[in-house]
């Protein structure tokens, strides 16, 4: 099963590199096609894979630390508040290297607000959390739209920020994302056993020697760093982090020692596939923002989770 998943991933990567506005036959490439493949397709496919892995990993950590099966960067409001920060940074004329820093700061602020609203006496109310996340999304989207009208010139399209897409890709960004992803993956991997204990109630975890508040705060910052960087480069791509941790859990169990890896892998697989579809679905070479596809999949999955977990949701 594990091997097949890796094989599938490699196959999807290769196929994704070859299809698009112009299909490329790797055995008979013209110089132009070779350039398209190496300068555009390959970095883009790798970029979507890394972003997918970042979103999958952050979703896995959010769901566990917030004790909420519906949590991901989008439903917690972290992604939209990070987008808000990125847009403010651009509007204020900050250098582009600082944009992810702004995104991280507002992302953490948004997430903290949602977390504070939903926790009472050590118990996180899952329903309040989702409601607070939705409100966060609405407010952030409103401010983003306002900024777009106010700073007409400097901000790229609203569609980019709210729907997400891989419109600007380069080896530089790809390197930044890969390094950050790898570092944060290792950070979580080293704490996988402790993270597992967060699945228990706070008192049990604490008396087993886990500093719950410290670990949760660290996890929030690290996961939101992934989201902040992903959002500054690709806009809000929702629901990848919602779907893949559940699939990883049902395939390989809930143990975070495996879930971290397979959430990342499945996130990459999902986003590469979604991006491939986004590139070919509109006839004539136009591109769909990839967030539309993930939102469609994610929305249906969200309904499915609500249906199957309804009982437990309302009765704790």
């Amino acid at each position, binding site marked *: 099963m594990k091997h097949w998943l890796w094989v599938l991933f490699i196959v999807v990567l290769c196929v994704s590199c070859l299809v698009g506005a112009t299909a490329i036959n790797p055995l008979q490439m013209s110089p132009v096609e070779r350039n398209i493949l190496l300068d555009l397709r390959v970095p883009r496919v790798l970029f979507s894979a890394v972003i997918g892995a970042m979103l999958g990993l952050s979703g896995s950590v959010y769901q566990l630390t917030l004790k909420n099966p519906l949590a991901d960067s989008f439903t917690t409001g972290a992604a939209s508040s990070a987008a808000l920060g990125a847009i403010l940074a651009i509007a204020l004329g900050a250098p582009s290297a600082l944009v992810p820093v702004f995104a991280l700061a507002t992302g953490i602020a948004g997430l903290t607000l949602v977390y504070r609203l939903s926790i009472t006496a050590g118990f996180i109310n899952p329903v309040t959390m989702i409601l607070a996340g939705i409100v966060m999304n609405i407010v952030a989207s409103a401010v983003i739209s306002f900024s777009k009208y106010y700073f007409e010139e400097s901000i790229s399209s609203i569609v980019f920020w709210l729907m997400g897409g891989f419109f600007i890709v380069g080896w530089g960004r790809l390197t930044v994302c890969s390094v950050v992803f790898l570092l944060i993956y290792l950070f979580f991997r080293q704490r996988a*056993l402790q993270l*597992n204990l967060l699945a*228990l109630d706070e008192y049990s975890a*604490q*008396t*087993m*020697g886990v500093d719950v508040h410290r670990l949760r705060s660290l996890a929030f910052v690290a996961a939101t760093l992934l989201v902040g960087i992903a959002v500054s480069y690709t806009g809000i791509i929702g629901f990848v982090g919602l779907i893949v941790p559940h699939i990883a859990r049902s395939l390989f169990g809930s*143990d975070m020692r495996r879930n971290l890896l397979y959430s990342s892998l499945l996130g990459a697989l999902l986003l590469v596939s979604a991006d491939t579809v986004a590139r070919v679905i509109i006839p004539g070479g136009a591109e769909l923002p990839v967030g539309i596809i993930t939102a469609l999949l994610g929305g249906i999955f969200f309904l499915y989770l609500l249906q199957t977990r309804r009982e*437990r949701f309302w009765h704790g």
Partner: protein
Amino acid sequence: MADLQVENLHFNRGDFSLHIESLWVKSGEKIAVMGENGCGKSTLLQLLCGLLTPDAGTISYSGTDLTMVPMPKRAELFSLLPQVAEVIFPFSVYEVVLFGRFPHCTANCFSAEDEEQSLYLLERLDLLELKDRHFNQLSGGEQRRTMLARVLNQQTQIIYMDEPNASLDIRHTMDIFRLLTLRSETLISSVHDINLAHRFFDRFLFLKQGVLLADVIRNDVTPELLAETYNVQVTIGTAAFEFQR
């Protein structure tokens, strides 16, 4: 082994306040904490575990103040079975019990010894057939026993339990109380069933509205004391079922 010493403990939360003048627990004692709902039993256990911060007073283990004991050391010193224990996501019974070994494991993984010990406890608590089931699919009593196994798996010198027999049937209750009281660890547990507590425990703390009403050994538990603690009339008689195991 660790002694527990509490001096002049004060804790306030809203209208509720808890005050313990002085409490000294020697290693290996089996203590039942008794009292009405809301009298401060759970709060006391949480204070002793450092989950709540007292407003005044000291809690010390073998002479070391609790605030000076780092988190991982605490997990070797004492364990807690909270009143409500939950697990999110489908973890198996075996995995949950194995989690109890966390304070003893190094390098991010469990040793063969940890696994052996977990299997032993699963068998001891009558859970071996359930070991691969998901925790959340179990009945309330089975979940309780899983959590008990998790706590015992931690192998600490002091065990705190908040109503360990809640939702357990009489047979498992008696098995578990016998198991707990025959072990060498210090046991401090809140219990609602007075007859059961009287049978298995040596020392009794009676709490009433946040105040330690009495701290007595088994022979000194009188109907008058119970009447005062619980605001009920108490008589000694045999008009009840007797259970042996």
